[in-house]
Structure formats: structure tokens, C-alpha cells
């Protein structure tokens, strides 16, 4: 029982960084302590069903309070959207060719996952200032010789 509560508390602490930063900063420790206390109390009074109730309520809270904030972060929203769109498009394609549908479901998920992962890497790289592999190198106008100015289309901006 103690192990279950300890593991649950650790898992809750792992989820805490996904809550809004100001809430986490001001009340993170209290939230984790309160969750542990509530879970221990629920286990003592109602056993496993009490623990399930606490986790269910935590999941609902997570969906209501943490998820809207997460969807405003490009590094989360863009890959998620990319994953969902890829999965939808490939699924639609498979539905239109039913004889391939049975064997290709795994392919849909892998394709969508790769798409989501690529978006995540791209967005995170953009946020941290790492140039994208397909991005052309930047150079200032002053570094370009005056002769080039007559051919502005060759400027790399």
C-alpha cells in the first residue's frame, strides 16, 4: 500500500511540470502533499476504489487545467496537430482502399508518430535558435560584395 502511494505521488510529481507555471511555482509542493494525503486517506477509508476515485478526479483536473495551457505551447500543439492530421489523412486513404486496411493500421500509427516527432524536433529547434537543416545559411548584406547587389535575387536573406 505504501509503495502504491509512494509511486502515485512520484507520478503526480512528474505530472506537475505540465500544470500552469504560476500555479506550480506558488503551490507545487502543496499540491503534491495534498495529493499524497488525499490518496492515503482514500485508500484507508475505501481501499482500491477510493484510490481509483482520486486518480480519476486528478485525470479530469489535468484535462481541465493543464491541457488548455499545454495546447498554447507550439512545441506541444504543432506535433499533436501534425500527428492527428497525418493519422486522419492516412486512415481516410485506407478506408477508400478497404483491402489494405487490415495490415496497414500499424503503418498509419508509425507514420503519424514520425510526423508528430518531426514537427516536435522542428519546433523545438526553432525555439532554441538551432537552424533547420533545410534552412539556407544567413549572411548580412555587408558581407556580400557590391557586385552582387546588381543581382538581388542571389542575396541570401
Amino acid at each position, binding site marked *: 500500500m505504501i509503495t502504491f502511494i509512494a509511486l502515485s505521488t512520484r507520478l503526480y510529481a512528474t505530472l506537475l511540470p505540465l500544470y500552469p507555471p504560476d500555479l506550480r511555482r506558488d503551490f507545487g509542493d502543496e499540491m503534491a502533499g495534498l495529493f499524497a494525503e488525499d490518496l492515503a486517506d482514500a485508500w484507508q477509508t475505501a481501499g482500491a476504489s477510493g484510490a481509483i476515485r482520486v486518480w480519476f478526479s486528478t485525470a479530469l483536473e489535468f484535462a481541465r487545467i*493543464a491541457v488548455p495551457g499545454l495546447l498554447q505551447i507550439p512545441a506541444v500543439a504543432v506535433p499533436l496537430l501534425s500527428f492527428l492530421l497525418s493519422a486522419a489523412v492516412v486512415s481516410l486513404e485506407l478506408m477508400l482502399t478497404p483491402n489494405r486496411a487490415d495490415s496497414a493500421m500499424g503503418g498509419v500509427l508509425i507514420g503519424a508518430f514520425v510526423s508528430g516527432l518531426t514537427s516536435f524536433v522542428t519546433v523545438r529547434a526553432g525555439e532554441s535558435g538551432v537552424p533547420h537543416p533545410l534552412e539556407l545559411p544567413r549572411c548580412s548584406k555587408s558581407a556580400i560584395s557590391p557586385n552582387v547587389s546588381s543581382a538581388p535575387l542571389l542575396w541570401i536573406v
Partner: protein
Amino acid sequence: MAQPNPPLARPALVILLALADGDKHGYAIMREARELSEGQLNIGPATLYTTIQRLLEADWIAEVAGPKDSDARRRYYGLTRQGRSVLTAELAQMESLLKRSKALRLRPSGSAS
């Protein structure tokens, strides 16, 4: 003419009500809130502290010192004068609505008068 306050969200109302009879820490507020709502409102840690954060910002509650023998890690909260007047106004408004619904015979037959 003063604009009437919009109705309080249920968690905020229940938390203010839980603090009406004295200062409490987070877990005591949560238990009291569940008891007051007869188990219908399941306030978890994130809802509780999001609401507490808003109530602190509005100056309706304040962080207070706990009892001498209390756990030092716990933070205690108490109702401010402003918070008490907001709660009183909200309850008065609810009471008037209840009276009106009673006159219209809209209250459930099993409820206490």
C-alpha cells in the same frame, strides 16, 4: 447604481464557506468543501489551489499563521473582511432565489424547508 456581483463559481463559494468558521490548511479546506457539497463537488489539488490563487489575488482570503503546534510545512488560509462580505452577499442572493423558487413550488418535495 452599483453593478451586482456575478455569481461565484461553485469551488470559490464552497472554499469561502469552508473558511467561514476559521482558518484552515489546504487539505482541511478540501475535506470541508466535499462535506459541504455532500460529495457532489470533488475538488482536487489543482482545482483547490487554482481557486485559492484567484481568491488570494482578489483579497477575499489571505495566508495566515497556523496554530503553534501545527506542521510548519502547511500553509493556512483565512477569510478577509472583504471575502466575508462577498460570501454574505452571495448567500443572501441565493436565499432570495430559494424563497422565490419556493413560492413557485419549484423546490424538490424532499428538501428541507
